């Protein structure tokens, strides 16, 4: 995805330069054997280049992950007796997660070329539509 690279290159010029000329050693991602610096680089790029709205979506995604993990942990600890209830709750979390992730991808300006026919507003409407269906199914399934 070239647009994405362009976007990040506005903030982190050395990295972009590194990607174009692979022969020369890169300045700050030079050693892949050092995972901490890579992680730091990722965090740095993320916090700098991500728009506010996307960060909001990401916060929601993080919340969903926490909810899902909690539900799963409870299921492991306390047993899965009303299995449909567990499934409904867990599937709601997972489903909402992937739908939100889809929204994030669709509304990301870097992906504009991929989603030629889906404007951000349309993406949000799709998101609402899918979520409503998801929650209908879940409430029906939880009995």
């Amino acid at each position: 995805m070239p647009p994405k690279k362009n976007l990040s290159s506005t903030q982190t010029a050395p990295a972009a330069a590194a990607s174009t000329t692979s022969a020369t050693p890169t300045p700050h991602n030079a050693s892949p054997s050092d995972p901490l610096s890579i992680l730091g680089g990722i965090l740095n790029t993320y916090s700098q280049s991500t728009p506010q709205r996307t960060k909001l979506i990401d916060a929601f995604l993080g919340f969903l992950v926490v909810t899902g993990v909690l539900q799963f942990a409870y299921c492991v600890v306390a047993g899965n007796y009303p299995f449909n209830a567990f499934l409904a709750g867990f599937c709601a979390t997972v489903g909402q997660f992937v739908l939100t992730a889809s929204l994030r991808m669709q509304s990301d300006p870097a992906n504009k070329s991929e989603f030629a026919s889906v404007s951000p507003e349309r993406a949000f409407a799709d998101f609402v539509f899918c979520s409503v269906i998801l929650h209908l199914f879940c409430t029906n399934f939880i009995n």
Partner: protein
Amino acid sequence: MSSMEALLKDESTRNIRRLLKVVILITIAGAAVSSRLFSVIRFESIIHEFDPWFNFRASKYLIKNGFYNFWDWFDDRTWHPLGRVTGGTLYPGLMVTSGAIYHILRMLSMPVDIRNICVLLAPAFSGLTALATYLFTKEMKDESAGLLAAAFIGIAPGYISRSVAGSYDNEAIAIFLLMFTFYLWIKALKDGSAFWGALCALFYFYMVAAWGGYVFITNMIPLHAFVLVLMGRYSPRLYVAYTSWFALGTLGSMQIPFVGFLPIRSSEHMAALGVFGLLQLVGFVEFVRYQVPSRQFKTLLKALIFIVFALSSAVLVLLTVSGVIAPWSGRFYSLWDTGYAKIHIPIIASVSEHQPTAWPAFFFDLEMLIWLFPAGIYMCFSTLQDQHVFVIIYGIMASYFAGVMVRLMLTLTPVVCVSAAIALSNILDIYLSVKTPAAPAVGAPSVDERKEKKPRVNILSAGKDSIVGIYSKASRIAVVAAFSIYLFVFVLHCTWVTSNAYSSPSVVLASRLPDGSQHIIDDYREAYYWLRKNTPDDAKIMSWWDYGYQIGGMADRTTLVDNNTWNNTHIATVGKAMSSREEVAYPILRQHDVDYVLVIFGGLLGYSGDDINKFLWMIRIAEGVWPDEVKERDFFTPRGEYRVDDGATDTMKNSIMYKMSYYNYQSLFPAGQAQDRVRNAKLPAVGPTLSILDEAFTSENWIVRIYKVKDLDNLGRDHASAAAFDAGKKKSKRTKAGRGAQRKLRVV
């Protein structure tokens, strides 16, 4: 040329084209519906075959009792001592569809009998299938190919065979849903739209509600996504389309009680789950990859993907082995290991539809499409976009399955139509270029007009690296004329096959008299109607499972086993009763409260689908459960022959199936000349005697024979001695009167 260009761009021309398109589609729908009506016009508007009778009965129940009662329906008139939780063991889509149509028509003050809705549901949906195929093919190539594909699927015998009027089976609506789900999937993948993905999931849900073949979709879509990932064609569009389909579709499919937790627990659904996980991973890695543009990091992540993928596969295998996830069910497993069913589950192998397909069947069902099919697949390869990968995979998988099992020809037919339409429309695109004279082909006007704008003409020739252009008119006319002739012959073939092979209701048997007039043999309904009118309402009928649904539907009596073969042991019990001696069979009959026993006998008429020919399967199924008491070997002569005449083994002659079939049969013939027209055997001069059963009814052509189970003897004797005592008394009387021996046999 430029004036042509202008003409094509013109608004009015576009309108005309739109009009033509609509007219063509309506015509195709008309052809699809009308070519399925042979059986209704020739015979009458009734339900055919076996399974549809249950669907019909369930639909009637739904109409009468409402949806909630239908959902919780416990049917105590089948599987007699056990009953059947019908609401939880059927796919309700078909019944709910026809019920909805019934109520809508009533709302429009057109009260139509539910039977007519059920009979005509399949033709109506075949029109919709043509539309769905049009849309699907339009996504693959262009509208002209779409129209061709719609025309093909409208009349292709491979699909008609399962959707003639009166064939009220799940497949009637399932093929429409299959094509429409695939269309929505392609649409979602192309646009990367969650909306289309959600629609795809909704139609997938409908498909799950309608047919057990939804597993095909559950595995096709993940396979497509997986292949796309392997080809390096992962894109956010794929992620959006797949995850929105999977999240909603899986949750939706679990709402159907018959499916329940299967999408979590069974192996058939694990591919979808696995690809879902894989896509999360790939999506995440792609995301990280664009944050850190380092090549080494990329390879590191790729390795990570493979490790996690291998790890999750291993976990899957472990879960399957340890039993948390159910292994493949026998029906699906037998698709892979084709010898499995015959050895382990005779009940699956005993169904004639589950046999491998012979070559002629492909040509018979698909005529010219079958040789255009590989060409279309090839053309998909030459313009390899995401959606073409789907057609290729679908084509390969469906061909394999259709080769393994006759009935899966049904899932092959749509892709054959699509692919043949792509091939043919490519040919027409090239050979019907601008200066063509009158276009004679089906759907030709639109083809003629469309190709101008499309760059497709070049695509084919890209491999040949020569300039496209057919300079001679003669060659153009020759090719187009040849294909028009093929198309006409295709129509003739389809009509002929439909009319002759696929339009006979199995409930009434038609035969021709020497003067050419038609003679209807209606023994089934005669016998079932006798049961309905002359037996108590709670009478239990024992028959082989093939007739269970028909007895329930037409005779409205309780049966022991039926076509929903969910309890193998119960079927084996019936098989054991049928294949045992009277003394052994009688306790079984008494224990199961059997009042009547029904057998089908085709010996007089030469009707080969009778119970003596199915007898070996009864024995095999019974032997699977009671290997010590029923032995298949005992029914063969020492030379390994299966005989019913003088040479038959004692076990064969003493089985109640043999006795019921041939009881009194020799009285129809001059002494010693009783002839079985199916087995071409001369029967023994002295017919079998029955002591535990009374002949209650025999239909006109002796096809259906019904026996009443005798009560216990008043004096506590066993039936054989009681019968011998009676016979002795009568014999002495008769000797006094000086009657011959032939009379005696009739009276007993």
